[in-house]
């Protein structure tokens, strides 16, 4: 266990192992995405109330779910980086932020697009949607803070602090937004979350959620590899790699 931890902290090992994981995981992910999307678009029946627009669910929900989970991954990596001073945890954290931001963005945009045919408006200030927007800002904050630092090691630590502060706040933010929404008279439009879902729609959805989780993992590994190369560009093993590559 301890040696595994130790290995995790070693950039060349991580670079190598992530490469071999990606070799198998990435094609699998892309396949799952393709199958899930085709299934969702072509081979399911339309929803009896929302018609064909509900097909957006197969990207909207997975993106939203994974974007939320991503914040916890990022915060845990940040915590590990601060407590055990593990450099690779920094790198992992840094890798999460842009992916999380992008997925949040996808959830927001697909939600907005979905809203137009179903609710007749692009946007409502619903509790869930508002907190998703805030999550987007939290992610962007981490990305922006990282980019603003010149010293990338310091940047990693600063972002770790920020994401930990964010974790303490996420439950507070969610709770408060919920309260806020029930406090003010809710808007006339209701979020159709509760309607139980038909199995024929559920399976592709589950597949897509799994695919998005896998996608998140792949992207995280890819980002980490790029980041490792940048940070370790002076070391022998990267030089060797570069020589072999060219």
């Amino acid at each position: 266990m301890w040696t595994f931890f130790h290995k995790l902290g070693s950039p060349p090992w991580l670079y190598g192992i992530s490469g071999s994981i990606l070799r198998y995981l990435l094609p699998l992910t892309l396949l799952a995405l393709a199958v899930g999307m085709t299934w969702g678009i072509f081979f399911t029946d339309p929803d009896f109330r929302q018609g064909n627009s509900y097909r957006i669910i197969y990207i909207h929900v997975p993106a939203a779910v994974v974007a939320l989970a991503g914040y916890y991954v990022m915060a845990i990596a940040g915590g590990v980086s601060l407590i055990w001073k593990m450099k690779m945890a920094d790198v992992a954290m840094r890798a999460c932020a842009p992916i999380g931001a992008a997925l949040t963005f996808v959830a927001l945009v697909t939600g907005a697009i979905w809203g137009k045919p179903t609710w007749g408006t692009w946007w409502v200030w619903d509790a869930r949607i508002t907190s998703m927007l805030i999550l987007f800002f939290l992610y962007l904050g981490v990305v922006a803070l990282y980019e603003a630092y010149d010293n990338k090691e310091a940047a990693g630590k600063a972002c770790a602090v920020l994401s930990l502060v964010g974790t303490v706040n996420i439950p507070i933010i969610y709770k408060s937004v919920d309260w806020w929404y029930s406090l003010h008279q809710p808007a006339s439009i209701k979020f159709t979350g509760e309607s139980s879902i038909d199995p024929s729609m559920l399976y592709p959805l589950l597949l897509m959620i799994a695919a998005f989780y896998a996608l998140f993992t792949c992207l995280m590994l890819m980002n980490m590899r790029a980041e490792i190369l940048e940070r370790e560009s002076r070391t022998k093993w990267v030089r060797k790699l570069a020589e072999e590559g060219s």
Partner: protein
Amino acid sequence: MSAPGALAFCGRLLRRQLVLAVRRPIEIVNPLLFFAMVVALFPLGLGPAPDALAEFAPGMLWIIALLSSLLTSDTVFRSDFDDGSLEQLLLSPQPLYFSVLAYVGAHWLITGVLLALVSPVFALMLGLPGQAIVALVISLLLGTAVLSLVGGIGAALTVGLKRGGMLISLLILPLYMPVLIFGSAAVQAAVIGAPAGPYLAILGAMLSLAIALAPVAMSAGLRISIDA
């Protein structure tokens, strides 16, 4: 020549920050004037319909207080960083936890507390019903303390950046939102005659949490910033 105790040192820092602020009275009056001017902007931008203004007054007052705190929080450590004092603070044998509390405390006193004390005037200008004013003042007192603490974290993380500029607002605005929600909810509750107590209690709980945790995050942030 003995080293001062942690609290004595904290008090000395607080005094130093307050003196620095008082040397430029304009700095103290500024957030108030900003507040006043934005209060004036709202009717100009939104149209003067008095009912609508009164209805939205709690939210607006709170939004303005929040912006006012946001805009000044960047300065908490900035000048000390620029002239090298911050390096010295970090090298000091004193516990950083209390030192940063002194910085934030000074910031709260010269923005939040002052703002809370003059807010009734602006509340009346916007037509806020009289019974909500106590809730407004208390919620501002508690809420701006949280804002100052959270703002301090943002300031500590960005002070080392050459052109941090508005980055701080991106970092801390999301964290400000719960305060805004409960702060304006407290006032709104008072407006319709409901008890504001529960909301104020939540603000108080947030404040306790912030006092316990924010200085730790600030200390870590400062140590990182000084090295960037």
